[in-house]
């Protein structure tokens, strides 16, 4: 009995393959995200264990100041002095004590004058340590003189450097020339451990250039004498040097700490990517729902026959559910296999750019989770059709298969209510009546989307009819339009699958374009500068220029005001945040700084001007005293001299350049320049360029260009999002193909008739293509409308000056064109089927 029913399932191979493909794609994406994430993660864990293999205990300085959120974890500012090293040598059980100098930010300049970049890995610089078992000189000699360096082999390869060459390195100091004395590599023939680069200096040079302080170390590695455990040695070290100023970790702890940062990043990566896999699966659920509905509609007579033989409702229900479980499980298995393969390929690709890799990691939880999610979504999608199948009455075996479509009224009313509830939730959030973002934004948006999906069947005929007017003049077009309206539920569900991706992409596009417009407006209205010097976004947190250069800029004829801005994460008044050093007087012109209270004037060391929000929050007033903690400068007293009026461009406390010397890096990130006469701008620009000509990480541009650069990451983000959403679109296209194939199959007789009365093959194709394009356009249109609506709601809800509601017309139009193309692509196979139809078989087909 079951066997007979299952045979029914496998009779529709093509449609089954399409449904399975949707699940395969979704699960493959999901598992690939986890597999590659876990593999890379394992690679890093292995890497850090290797790095710390020879370290039993490591001592580092403790920093009070938060890490700059812009990056720079590898930039060491909490240092260990020689006195502590000496103390460590006296610790009982410390066999060897090796003080080290290693820090991020040694940028080697290549032959084109550009700083050699890595893909996210640090560019380390430090002191050469003789006898380190992990590092070996492959060619030449270790650095022995102040002007000598050894470089890692990967650096030598990318820069095409040989022993004896002269290279230039930017560190905390501007570029300096060194002679390459040797090429180094790691044990096991590795050019680099995980894509990082390393420049080895002599100890005093490393201390000066990488740590900024002579006689200091970044860390001290201690090897335990035999019989002393790592934990025991750690305790002894802690007793010797205390735990307030220095951090003592065992080698294992160090490895874990180093890996944990990457682990948490990889977790975000895994989850974010698998969300798109799940979105793909949800899109696939529409397709599966459609497929099962169609299969069951076609098999109504067959099922009724079983019922009349005495099969129970549950037997029918179970047989359909079993079909879906089988389908889901098999497809998820294939998806998982594909995912592992994809994950493997991805890690191999990343490994070629230097990321550590190893054998593929497939955690049992990932395997089970993938199978479970894939199968569960398939079964859920098949549930309603299965229930419908179980309600087939035995009498329907005798009835004509064609049953009229149920009226859409109930569905439409339910949809309107759902939509209304969603909108009310968003309004509640907008008016701040309810503050819970999950309930208001999350549930509200979800309900609006579901409401729109439920309304879609009722909208199908009006919308496709309206669009269809364009093609109504030709018979194939007209027939295609009419066919679209024949089964509004099916058409709408097929279109709804496309809606998912389009809605999300549109919402994001509206929000992003509003951010861009908002930021642009702010810049345009508040910034009164003609030229900008800025460290390149991609050059990392160590890049910048000597703030003193601004004094030379001020001397250029035509320059009326100029200031550098040097920012860093600090602790001010006990609160973690940013502070910036800038010249206050010129900033009044450049940024429109105005006093709310106290004096707004150039600052001396130990003085601070607070931004309005900071002052309000802390209650500090002009004349009050507070403290500043910087990464290198430690704690120092500050006196509040003034409070700024709210200003969009300067949104953090302002300190003097003298106090900024305690910042992590001695460079300014930005400089703004006002020129008296627009005609002088080009001349000033040229002179400014010569001032920073030897700094490859800094460019001279104008504000609009800088704005474009700083908002370009938004475009990048959007592009990544759209590529990832492409998965859902792909699945949705599979759904369109599926629906069309079914339609062609169902209408064989009609198609035959059309051929018999003289419709040509190509016209048959165009008829199918019309239907296909209309379905995709319907989905895209609904998605664009809902997405734009949600985007507008978000912009309104979050408000703020950095948001200015802007509809991305370009995106909307591109999406519509994309929908037409997607529709044409989806039509290809079904159209060929329709065109190839054997006329005689079609008309004699019962």
């Amino acid at each position, binding site marked *: 009995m079951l066997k007979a029913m299952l045979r029914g399932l496998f009779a529709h191979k093509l449609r089954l393959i399409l449904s399975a493909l949707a699940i395969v794609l979704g699960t493959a994406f999901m598992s690939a995200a986890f597999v590659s994430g876990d593999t890379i993660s394992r690679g890093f864990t292995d890497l850090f264990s290797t790095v710390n293999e020879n370290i039993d205990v490591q001592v580092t300085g403790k920093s009070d100041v938060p890490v700059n959120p812009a990056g720079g974890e590898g930039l060491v500012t909490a240092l260990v002095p020689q006195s502590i090293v000496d103390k460590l040598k006296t610790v009982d059980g410390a066999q060897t004590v090796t003080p080290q100098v290693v820090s991020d930010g040694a940028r080697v300049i290549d032959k084109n004058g550009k700083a050699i970049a890595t893909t996210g890995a640090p560019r380390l610089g430090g002191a050469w340590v003789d006898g380190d078992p992990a590092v070996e000189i492959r060619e030449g000699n270790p650095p022995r003189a102040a002007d000598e360096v050894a470089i890692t082999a990967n650096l030598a390869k990318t820069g095409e450097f040989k022993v004896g060459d002269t290279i230039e390195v930017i560190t905390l100091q501007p570029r300096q020339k060194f002679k390459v004395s040797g090429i180094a590599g790691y044990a096991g023939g590795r050019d680099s451990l995980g894509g990082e680069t390393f420049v080895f200096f002599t100890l005093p040079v490393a201390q000066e250039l990488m740590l900024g302080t002579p006689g200091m170390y970044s860390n001290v590695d201690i090897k335990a004498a035999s019989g002393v455990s790592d934990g025991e040695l750690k305790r002894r070290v802690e007793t010797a040097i205390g735990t307030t100023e220095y951090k003592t970790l065992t080698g294992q702890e160090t490895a874990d700490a180093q890996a944990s940062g990457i682990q948490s990043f990889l977790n975000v990566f895994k989850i974010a990517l698998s969300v798109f896999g799940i979105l793909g699966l949800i899109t696939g659920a529409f397709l599966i729902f459609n497929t099962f509905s169609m299969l069951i509609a076609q098999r109504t007579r067959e099922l009724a026959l079983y019922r009349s033989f005495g099969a129970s409702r549950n037997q029918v229900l179970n047989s359909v559910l079993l079909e879906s479980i089988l389908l889901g499980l098999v497809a998820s298995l294939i998806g998982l296999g594909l995912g592992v393969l994809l994950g493997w390929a991805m890690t191999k690709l990343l490994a070629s750019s230097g990321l550590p890799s190893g054998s593929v990691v497939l955690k049992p939880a990932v395997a089970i989770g993938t199978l479970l999610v894939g199968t569960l979504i398939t079964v859920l999608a098949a549930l309603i059709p299965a229930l419908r199948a179980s309600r087939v009455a035995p009498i329907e075996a005798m009835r004509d298969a064609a049953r009229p479509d149920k009226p859409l009224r109930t569905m439409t009313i339910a949809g309107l209510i759902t939509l209304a509830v969603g909108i009310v939730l968003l309004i509640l959030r907008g008016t701040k009546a309810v503050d819970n973002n999950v309930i208001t934004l999350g549930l509200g948006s979800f309900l609006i989307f579901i409401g729109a999906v439920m309304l879609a069947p009722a909208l199908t005929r009006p919308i496709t009819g309206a669009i269809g007017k364009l093609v109504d003049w030709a018979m194939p077009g007209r027939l295609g339009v009419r066919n679209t309206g024949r089964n509004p539920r099916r058409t709408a569900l097929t279109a709804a699958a496309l809606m998912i991706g389009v809605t999300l992409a549109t919402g994001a596009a509206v929000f992003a374009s509003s951010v861009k417009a908002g930021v642009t407006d702010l810049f345009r209205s508040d910034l009164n500068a003609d030229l900008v010097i800025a460290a390149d976004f991609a050059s990392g947190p160590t890049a910048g220029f000597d703030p003193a250069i601004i004094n030379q800029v001020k001397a250029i004829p035509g320059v009326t005001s100029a200031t550098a801005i040097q920012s860093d994460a600090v602790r001010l008044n006990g609160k973690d945040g940013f502070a910036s050093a800038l010249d206050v007087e010129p900033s009044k012109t450049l940024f429109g700084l105005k006093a709310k209270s106290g004096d707004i004037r150039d600052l001396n060391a130990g003085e601070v001007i607070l931004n309005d929000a900071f002052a309000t929050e802390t209650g500090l007033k002009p004349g009050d005293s507070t403290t500043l903690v910087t990464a290198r400068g430690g704690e120092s007293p500050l006196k509040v001299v003034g409070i700024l009026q709210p200003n969009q461009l300067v949104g953090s406390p302002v300190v003097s350049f003298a106090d900024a010397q305690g910042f992590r890096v001695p460079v300014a990130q930005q400089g703004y320049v006002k020129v008296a006469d627009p005609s002088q701008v080009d001349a000033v620009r040229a002179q400014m360029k010569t001032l920073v000509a030897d700094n490859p990480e800094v460019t001279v541009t104008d504000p609009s260009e800088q704005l474009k650069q700083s908002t370009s990451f938004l475009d990048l983000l959007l592009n990544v999002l759209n590529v990832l959403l492409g998965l859902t679109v792909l699945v949705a296209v599979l759904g369109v193909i599926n629906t069309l194939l079914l339609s062609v199959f169902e209408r064989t007789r009609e198609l035959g008739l059309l051929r*018999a009365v*003289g419709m040509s093959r190509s016209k048959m194709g165009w008829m199918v293509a019309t239907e296909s394009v209309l379905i995709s356009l319907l989905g895209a249109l609904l998605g664009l409308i809902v997405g734009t609506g949600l985007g507008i709601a978000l912009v309104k809800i979050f408000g703020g000056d950095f948001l200015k509601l802007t509809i991305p017309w370009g995106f909307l139009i591109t999406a519509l064109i994309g929908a037409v193309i997607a529709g044409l692509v989806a039509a290809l196979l079904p159209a060929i089927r329709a065109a190839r139809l054997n006329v005689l078989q079609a008309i004699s087909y019962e």
Partner: protein
Amino acid sequence: MAMQPAARAVTVWKIYGSGEAQVQALRGVSADFERGKYTAIMGPSGSGKSTLMHCLAGLDTVNAGEVFIGDTQVTGLGDAGLTKLRRDKVGFIFQQFNLLPTLTAEENIKLPLAIAGRAPDKAWYDTVIQTVGLGDRLHHRPAELSGGQQQRVACARALVSRPEVIFADEPTGNLDSKSGNDVLNFLRDSVRHHGQTIVMVTHDPNAASYADRVVFLADGEIVDELHSPTADGVLDRMKKLDRRGDADA
């Protein structure tokens, strides 16, 4: 020169399958279908009536022999040629499922013209519509028409493009006798008054009696024919044919 027939079969052979399962559906059939005449094809079930009609209309290929519609040689035409032939020179009426459910009766009637991108000849179109006698039901979908009305729409559709010949395969097979007679009258009138050529396959002696000539088919061969038939005359011949079949067995 004698007037060219509207459709012509010359020693047409049609063989299905091969080896043991081989069926010779047509065995050297030759027949002329005169212009402006109403011909019925009759014969026992499985005698090859539908096959002959499909071969004549270019819906099916033949194994040997030649088929002409007017001066066009059908055998040897490619898909494009056959499509054009069906569009411009041939009309069809099937037993059922003749109409597209998404189009109204009127649109269905105009379908061949719309496909060809031709405007209907107004006078002729009005005449056809008049004869169909659908009145205000013209703007209804097929699902809202009776079986007889649907078949009359199908007839009108076949007529509207003034094809060289109309092929009808048991057009009244699914109708009661009243609706059937309506359809048959309609077809006969189009031959009498408008010079249409019609070839109709039927099982029904009464239907055949509307024709000018009846061709009898048995075992893939033309075995007999009757001019200006009456229902009784046809029945008579059919009985003879059946007896012949029995004698063969």
